[in-house]
């Protein structure tokens, strides 16, 4: 049941009038704000056709936006695969029975979760070349940074998911003679991954957004090409930033929508997970727009 209709009564005639009045008042205030922003932009001559016209030309797209988009998707794609692998390995590591595996794995995961991604990318891009006596490309600086951070977050998600699988599952698996490795791989991980899907996908959205940090080490991704370089050519930084923001929003919404679709498809036979509240339920733990947020309990 959605809370939004539990918090207030079904509107009667007076409430309907009141809601309508509030809608109109807030709507007017909102329109006023939008108009104010419009005039501010207008005063700064930001609506001049000259600034927006480049987006109707195919060369703008083929030279700037599409190569940038491709670079973003490439970094995000490689980063996603690597961080999922990193996450699975370190989740298993942390759940290991041997302390000399579980303790180092725990330290690595806790450490990389606490270090800002930008700091990591700077270290890999500017610091590591001193150590290996050779350059590190911007692409790998971004991808490795993304992998270490998001992989650690995913490791915690997998771990929480594995621990939340009902105990009967692993008992039954051991009873039919599986080894620990098989129990983990064949029984626990698939169920954990399915139950943790919302958290995993919202972390992948975070990863996709964080590729924008590549801009700082001059990796030619969407923000670099589509806003920085494009605006350097046409002098339309606000227009460019808006167009690129829309592209990012569409991209991430598609990913979130895909996750919702996958979730509905696989939900039928999956057990339902108790709500996640540890430090793992990270900032971005509730993907999806209306309705897909956590279900009310009780």
């Amino acid at each position: 049941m959605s809370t939004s209709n539990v918090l207030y009564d079904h509107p009667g005639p007076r409430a309907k009038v009141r809601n309508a009045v509030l809608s109109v008042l807030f709507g007017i205030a909102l329109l006023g704000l939008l108009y104010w922003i419009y005039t501010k932009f207008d005063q700064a001559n930001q609506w001049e056709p000259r600034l927006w016209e480049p987006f109707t030309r195919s060369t703008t797209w083929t030279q700037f936006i599409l190569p940038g988009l491709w670079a973003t998707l490439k970094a995000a794609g490689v980063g996603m695969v690597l961080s999922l692998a990193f996450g699975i390995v370190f989740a298993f590591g942390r759940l290991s029975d041997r302390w000399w595996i579980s303790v180092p794995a725990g330290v690595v995961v806790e450490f990389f979760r606490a270090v800002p991604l930008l700091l990591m990318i700077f270290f890999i891009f500017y610091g590591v070349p001193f150590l290996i006596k050779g350059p590190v490309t911007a692409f790998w600086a971004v991808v490795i940074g993304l992998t270490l951070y998001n992989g650690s977050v995913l490791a915690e998600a997998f771990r929480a998911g594995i621990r939340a699988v009902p105990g009967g599952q692993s008992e039954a698996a051991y009873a039919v003679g599986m080894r620990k490795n098989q129990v983990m791989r064949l029984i626990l991980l698939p169920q954990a991954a399915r139950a943790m899907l919302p958290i995993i996908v919202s972390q992948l959205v975070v990863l996709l957004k964080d590729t924008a940090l590549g801009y700082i080490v001059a990796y030619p991704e969407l923000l670099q090409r589509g806003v920085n370089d494009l605006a350097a050519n046409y002098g339309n930084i606000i227009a460019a930033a808006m167009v690129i923001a829309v592209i990012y929003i569409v991209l991430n919404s598609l990913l979130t929508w895909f996750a919702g679709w996958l979730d509905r498809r696989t939900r039928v036979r999956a057990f339902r997970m108790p709500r996640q509240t540890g430090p793992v339920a990270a900032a971005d733990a509730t993907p999806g727009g209306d309705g897909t947020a956590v279900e009310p309990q009780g």
Partner: protein
Amino acid sequence: MHVFTDPDNFDAYVSGFLWILKLTGASAVCALVIGVLLAAMRVSPVPVLRGFGAAWVNIFRNTPLTLVIFFCYFGLYATLGLSLSQDLDLNIYWLGVIGLSTYTAAFVCEAVRSGINTVPTGQAEAARAIGLSFAQTLRIVVLPQAARSVIAPLGSVLIALCKNATIVGTIGLLESSNIMKDLINSNGDAVIVIFLVFAGTFAALLIPTGYFFGWLANRLAVKR
């Protein structure tokens, strides 16, 4: 450790983290206020308010923070001429606070909204039954209970905010990540020490914060 025994470098290190703490503090307060208001809007009976809240969340949650901060500087300041302080650093600082708050508010809103969902429906029904209005139900009955269950998620948001504060460095504030970059470039022989000191400071700040919020959430959890 010779890098950090140089007083200039040490001062730079301290000032970098002071910027991070100041950014985090101011943005946390703003984001909490805006986020709770947005959450209230998203569950309100007025459709326009609901739409506004949903739009805010969907726009800012899906835009990279780097782009938001970028827009604050090049859009609000460089193009529209919004100047918040005569001091160059302070101006960037406040632009950063605007960007961080608008972005983080979307996450606070979602955390609070899912917290509202954990309050049993009977609580809201009972509140309505004794004649409380929507605002009263939310303020007196639902939000105080929701607050206890959102402590852990809000802790995660705060930790993310503190790490995200480094991104204000991209518009020229000399916060810790920029300081680290400069130190690495001028001390190529000590890159590991420099990284471990900076990363270790973040870890020392944030890992205990995470455990503290976990402990607090456990302690204040509504036992049902």
